[in-house]
């Protein structure tokens, strides 16, 4: 077995700001890795670089596909990246509206990804879409409604259904529960936890929510000022933090 995605020496500058400063990270099949850190630590930039949405100034990102072929994400053409995003990857945005098409029905939002992946049978697409709405705990009877009618939590669940319908091997998630009510967050986290375990997905999760990271992640990567300051088993990083910044981060969490 080898890593699904492996990155080394990533540098990225925005003017004088070093968003990424020599970052190395890897993710293995079936592994959930949380990238935590405060706003401006570079965690979202890292996710965008790994997913090919942002070019780094230096470094390498290698993705190994199901057939064992290696793709250099930083050198891939836009068309090749779109192909990977359709077939192998998924991306869950913090704001569901960035991913959903609001003028298309809920079922259409899910079915669209299947069609992009080559499915042409309308009845089958509709059936799979209904199945996925159920898996994310939505009423399939609402599949013809516009997502505009949905609450924030439901839109996020729809985005997750849309992402997972093509059976991705690697899912990038950027603050998937950010901006939602706490009760909605808990249900969504539990939904994600169940789906990830059932499907054996590899997930790279960016979050500033330490409790979410503890619940979902096998491994934690702590970022500060564009650098990885600490990483390891989730419970070890949170219960025996070594770096001063990680100690600050962990000690700042309110116990419910």
């Amino acid at each position, binding site marked *: 077995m080898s890593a699904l995605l492996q990155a080394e020496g990533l540098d990225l500058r925005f003017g004088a700001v070093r968003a990424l400063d020599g970052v190395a990270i890897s993710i293995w099949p079936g592994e959930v890795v949380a990238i935590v850190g405060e706003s401006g630590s570079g965690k979202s930039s890292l996710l965008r670089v790994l997913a090919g949405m942002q070019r780094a100034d230096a470094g390498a990102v290698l993705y190994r596909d199901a057939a064992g072929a290696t793709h250099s994400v930083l050198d891939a053409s836009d068309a090749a990246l779109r192909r990977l995003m359709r077939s192998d990857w998924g991306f869950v945005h913090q704001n569901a509206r960035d991913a959903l098409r609001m003028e298309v029905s809920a079922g259409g939002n899910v079915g669209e990804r299947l069609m992009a992946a080559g499915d042409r049978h309308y009845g089958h697409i509709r059936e799979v879409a209904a199945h996925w709405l159920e898996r994310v705990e939505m009423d399939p009877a609402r599949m013809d409604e516009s997502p505009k009618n949905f609450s924030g939590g439901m839109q996020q669940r729809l985005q997750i259904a849309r992402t997972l319908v093509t059976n991705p091997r690697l899912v990038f998630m950027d603050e998937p529960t950010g901006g939602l009510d706490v009760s909605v967050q808990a249900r969504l*986290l539990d939904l994600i936890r169940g789906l990830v375990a059932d499907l054996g997905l590899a997930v790279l999760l960016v979050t500033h929510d330490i409790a979410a990271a503890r619940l979902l992640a*096998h491994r934690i990567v702590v970022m500060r000022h564009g650098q990885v300051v600490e990483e390891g088993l989730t419970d070890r990083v949170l219960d025996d933090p*070594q770096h001063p910044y990680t100690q600050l981060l962990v000690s700042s969490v309110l116990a419910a």
Partner: protein
Amino acid sequence: MIMLQAQGLQKSFTLHLQGGIAMAVLRNVDITLRAGECVALAGPSGAGKSTLMRCLYGNYGCDGGSIHLRHHGAMVDIAAADARQMREVRRDTLGYVSQFLRVIPRVPSLDIVAEPMRARGVPLEEARARAAALLTRLNMPPSLHGLPPATFSGGEQQRVNLARGFAAAHPVLLIDEPTASLDAANAAVVIALIEEAKAAGQAIIGIFHDLPVRERVADRLLHIEPVCEPA
């Protein structure tokens, strides 16, 4: 057969938010654990018994020393293992019943107990049946099996935790205060579970403040002395 051998374990904590104070907790701890035996950690409160357990489980990182564990037939130094190796070790070889259950929201007790078996590939129905049998044996009525333990009493949560720890039958099991909030009838069940695990060849390291329980299950005591010098 030696299942676990720790040598020269060291652990200190550096509190960066308190001006970098260093506290030495473990100094040169050695343990040898064989299949089918139970070693009880003894020593005053604060001596580092729970810290040692957490180091053995990889929850705390050691500053020095080695922990060789028989994993998939070979001795592996888990003090030097990376996160992925440690996950595999915890799935297949090393179990831990902590003092408190860390509750996962909305997950029914039955699935919490079945989860370590599921991770090892035991089919769902079989894992649930074994989970239900263990919960029932620990006097948890079937009406509670489908509920998340968040609203349970301390003793009920501890029994869910114990069922989860014993269900997976790891070759090496770490148990921290298994009877602390249990009544005599449930403590007797725990004693029986430990004796059965030993008879089946499982090796156990435990902390038992309940001395009659310790007398019953422990083959040897390992004294942990508080470290008095600074780190």
